[in-house]
């Protein structure tokens, strides 16, 4: 039994590190083929790694663009949201007859100018009705 044949590398543990011992008597052709195989393996591994990195970058880019799109869509004025209970098949509500009415309010905001103290009495009163 040839334990050191050309296709049977021997593995030994030396000082805790794995070492490959090549069989004695290898010819130049076998060494060359082995080198080519190793080179191909390294090339394939590198290409595989490159492919994985490219795919990850692609997925990351798509996700970032999507997230940015959602953010911009919400940040810019004029974005459209659908109120629960409202089936909106149009992006704009119909024209008001006066053309000036506030429509589709679904939030409550303070006035754009501060409310200020005024001396009483006032010509108009607000109270329960």
């Amino acid at each position: 039994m040839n334990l050191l044949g050309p296709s049977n590398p021997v593995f030994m543990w030396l000082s805790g590190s794995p070492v490959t011992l090549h069989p004695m008597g290898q010819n130049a052709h076998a060494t060359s083929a082995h080198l080519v195989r190793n080179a191909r393996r390294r090339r394939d591994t590198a290409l595989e790694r490159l492919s994985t990195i490219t795919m990850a970058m692609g997925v990351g880019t798509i996700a970032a663009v999507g997230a940015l799109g959602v953010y911009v869509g919400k940040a810019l004025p004029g974005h459209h949201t659908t109120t629960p209970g409202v089936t909106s098949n149009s992006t704009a509500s119909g024209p008001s007859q006066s053309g000036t009415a506030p429509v589709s309010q679904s939030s409550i905001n303070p006035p754009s100018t501060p409310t200020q103290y005024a001396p009483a009495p006032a010509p108009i009163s607000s109270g329960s009705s």
Partner: protein
Amino acid sequence: MGAAAIDEERPCIYRTKALGTIAELLVTDPHVIVAASTLLHEELERIDRAASRFRPDSDIIRLNRSAGSEVTVSQDLLEAVQVALGMAEATQGAVDPTVGQALCRLGYDRDFADVAGGVRGRLPRSQPAPGWSVVGVNERTRTVSLPAGVSLDLGATAKALASDRAAASIHARLGCGVLVSLGGDVAVAGPPPPGGFSVGLADACTERSATEAVRIDSGGLATSGIGVRQWTLGRHRVHHIVNPATGLPAPTCWRTVATTAASCVQANAASTASVVMGDAALDWLNSHHLPARLVAMDGTVHYTHAWPAQEVVRQAEVVGIR
């Protein structure tokens, strides 16, 4: 149409009765008061025809009677329903248009003048309103659908919407500064008069002796309260601000709540929601940075952080540093 007094120097005010309450119009240019009052009446007619629960030919009567099917409505009612749903969402359902049946169970199924003297009956059992999310609206086909047994009441938003629309419309067409008040739901538009649009804060909108006033230059101011629209139902005293969670008059701790906001619709929704919320209203109003004045049942007045600090202003006026 009521009489309108013309004064060359001062803003001109026009008053009339409408929508079961007082309608007031102030314009900064006295020369356009007649044209402005005509536009106001057009807006009043539009909202009444669209959203009055007590007018047999109104759009909302037809919608409520057709509950269970999809109904094509006027553009005015579509807009009013959308605004009501938006405010229901903004107030987390504290102001909900699906309280129509609850109000009818309380006897408020006819014009208030016929209810004010009292109605027969018993206080109904607690029954939550169906909730605003059951209302379907399709803008493209201009249709609204209500499940069977559901009816809408737009009392918390329609009058304020009319104020917003009237003020915006009059300013757009006539170019002057405008204040419209429909039963105390106040909207302003355009350049304010010298000193701003000044509005007194009273228990009832008909009071002229308010001891406190504020100035607003944009948006709206509204006051909600339970003092005016009250009636007896059998042996019980009830009012018109219904808690959607129970379908019964809100057991509130506030006599009135006045709020200013970006529009009259928003101000009215906030003040009505505050009456419903009770104790929790102050925190809610502060979280929205809304200027508000809340009068408790014992007359104690509470203010939110954004309300103008009147004492400070008065002191500043005394020493002339304003």
